[in-house]
């Protein structure tokens, strides 16, 4: 049985190994391939007791189930043509105006991230937005960067928007609706900051196209319209199911159902329809639920418990503010943002939750979430470690350093964090501070 410094060192070394492996993914091996053995070592060496490990798994269970259901929900919405329809609609509504397209992309990315999680925005929405911008003869960069930025910074609204939120949701002790109510204002504040900075930062790329290009574009469009399939009909069934799922989330707290079951029901409704239509297969559905990723989250949870359960947890805990005053909220958000940039926001959230203790003030947990969600835009790959690794790769593969993207993050993240925390503090004060 290890304890004290020995346990701490072993847990930290294992965590570093797990994260390094997840970033490098040698030979395309799943991240769980190292995380699960690492968790086993943690338990075998007594860094985390079997009881504690079991408690971790029980706590993470509903979270991981929720995650799988949301991933499947986004996949099925894509199968039913929602993202194709969205791309066509964004193009049409923008009328070829870059500023108008940016506004629409902001709205789409913010809503998709909030409802279907950041994974949906990064994996499904971004390529669609790129094709839409290019199809309109516009520079794609501001619109693509808007997707990658909002996938992080607009992921604070709902517990389902980001895995970080799901992990922290039960620690807040709030209902789904209360969570959304407190995070609504910070969500809007951060998006507003992003929008203002984007409009200024990309002013050259967002100038209206010259008249010649516009008329030519219209001619081309008219020619292409004859060849190209028109925008598909809106996937009404998907909207009905997603709308009902959202309502179900809101009502879950009132009727005492775990929101995870609402997500499962929503995913189930779409899955049955797609299965009967032969659009998907059962193995495909299982693959999209990312069972190995879920396993990775369980294992990471145990390894992080090993890190926070000893001296380091207490040391970090001593640094963290304990009162939800404005300074306290800002302090927690900043520490969380820094930690998310050093490692990645997933382990950062687990560490922060471990350090905040068993019964933290919900305001502090929400401030932590603003930090781990908005913070990653500072380094475009979500952590300094990944960024450094990509630099090593870059010297071999000539991948560029994204100085422009980093400058953009340096502008939006500090202002976004501050605006988000001010909005949260305002909401908490207005809501009686949850005292």
């Amino acid at each position: 049985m290890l304890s004290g410094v020995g346990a701490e060192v072993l847990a930290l070394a294992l965590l570093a190994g797990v994260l390094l492996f997840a970033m490098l993914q040698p030979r395309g091996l799943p991240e769980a391939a190292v995380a699960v053995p690492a968790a086993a070592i943690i338990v075998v060496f007594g860094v985390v007791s079997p009881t504690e490990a079991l408690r971790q798994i029980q706590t993470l269970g509903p979270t991981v189930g929720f995650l799988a259901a949301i991933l499947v929900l986004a996949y099925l919405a894509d199968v039913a043509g929602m993202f194709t329809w969205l791309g066509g609609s964004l193009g049409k509504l923008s009328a070829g105006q870059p500023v108008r397209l940016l506004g629409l992309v902001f709205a789409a990315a913010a809503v998709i991230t909030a409802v279907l999680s950041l994974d949906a925005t990064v994996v499904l929405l971004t390529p669609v937005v790129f094709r839409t911008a290019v199809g309109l003869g516009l520079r794609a960069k501001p619109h693509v960067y808007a997707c990658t930025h909002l996938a992080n910074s607009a992921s604070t609204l709902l517990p389902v928007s980001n895995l970080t939120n799901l992990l922290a949701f039960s620690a807040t002790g709030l209902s789904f609706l209360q969570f959304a109510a407190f995070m609504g204002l910070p969500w809007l504040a951060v998006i507003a900051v992003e929008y203002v900075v984007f409009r200024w930062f990309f002013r050259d790329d967002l100038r209206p196209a010259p008249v010649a290009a516009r008329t030519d574009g219209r001619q081309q469009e008219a020619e292409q319209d004859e060849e190209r399939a028109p925008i598909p009909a809106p996937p009404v069934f998907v909207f009905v199911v997603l709308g009902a799922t959202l309502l179900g989330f809101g009502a879950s707290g009132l009727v005492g159902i775990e929101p995870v079951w609402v997500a499962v029901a929503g995913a189930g409704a779409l899955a049955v329809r797609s299965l009967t239509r032969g659009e998907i297969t059962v193995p495909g559905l299982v693959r999209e639920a990312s069972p190995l990723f879920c396993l990775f989250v369980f294992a990471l949870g145990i390894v992080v418990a090993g890190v926070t359960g000893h001296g380091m947890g207490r040391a970090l805990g001593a640094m963290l503010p304990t009162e939800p005053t404005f300074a306290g909220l800002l302090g927690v958000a900043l520490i969380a943002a820094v930690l998310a940039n050093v490692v990645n926001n997933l382990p950062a959230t687990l560490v922060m939750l471990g350090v905040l203790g068993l019964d933290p003030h919900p305001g502090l947990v929400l401030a932590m979430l603003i930090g781990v969600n908005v913070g990653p835009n500072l380094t475009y790959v979500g952590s300094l470690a990944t960024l450094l690794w990509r630099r090593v790769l870059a010297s071999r593969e000539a991948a560029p350093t994204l100085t422009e993207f980093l400058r953009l993050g340096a502008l939006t993240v500090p202002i976004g964090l501050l605006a988000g925390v001010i909005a949260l503090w305002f909401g908490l004060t207005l809501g009686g501070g949850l005292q």
Partner: protein
Amino acid sequence: MTARVVAWLSEGTWHAVVDGVATALEAMNSSPEVVLLYVLDSQVGEAVHGAFGGLLGRGMRERDPGTAVTDAGRVAASELLEAARRRLGASAELVVRAGRIEREVVAACAGADLLVCARDGDRSRLGPHSLGHQTRFVVDHAPCAVLLIWPDAVPGLGSIPPHPEDRPGAH
């Protein structure tokens, strides 16, 4: 030796640049080689790769949207250049490069006699802001003559602010 004209084309302004090339060809008595150049900004694909990389633990590299974005960018670049060649109505070499846009354009001008490109900044008035920052770099560093095109109506001379000494009330 045949003269070499490079036309740097990008979204929105390429029509005017192609028309500028056509005008320049008419004015030249020889028939130069024409290169139609498009530079892909490799930062865009890399940013999307990065965003996917930030999703720790999701595995499934084949789903990396950065690859889809980079591929779609290449297809779109070739389509733009083909459309430009049709508009020019003359033979031209089509070149797609990738990297830092301004550096790639300057590099593509090695051995060229003339670069044709467009003003892509604030086009509502005459002045330095009518060049975006990449075009500014290209114009400042081009190793050849540069023909700068106004992609739409040229603002009037009245859009230049008066010299400080000529302002009413100035001494």
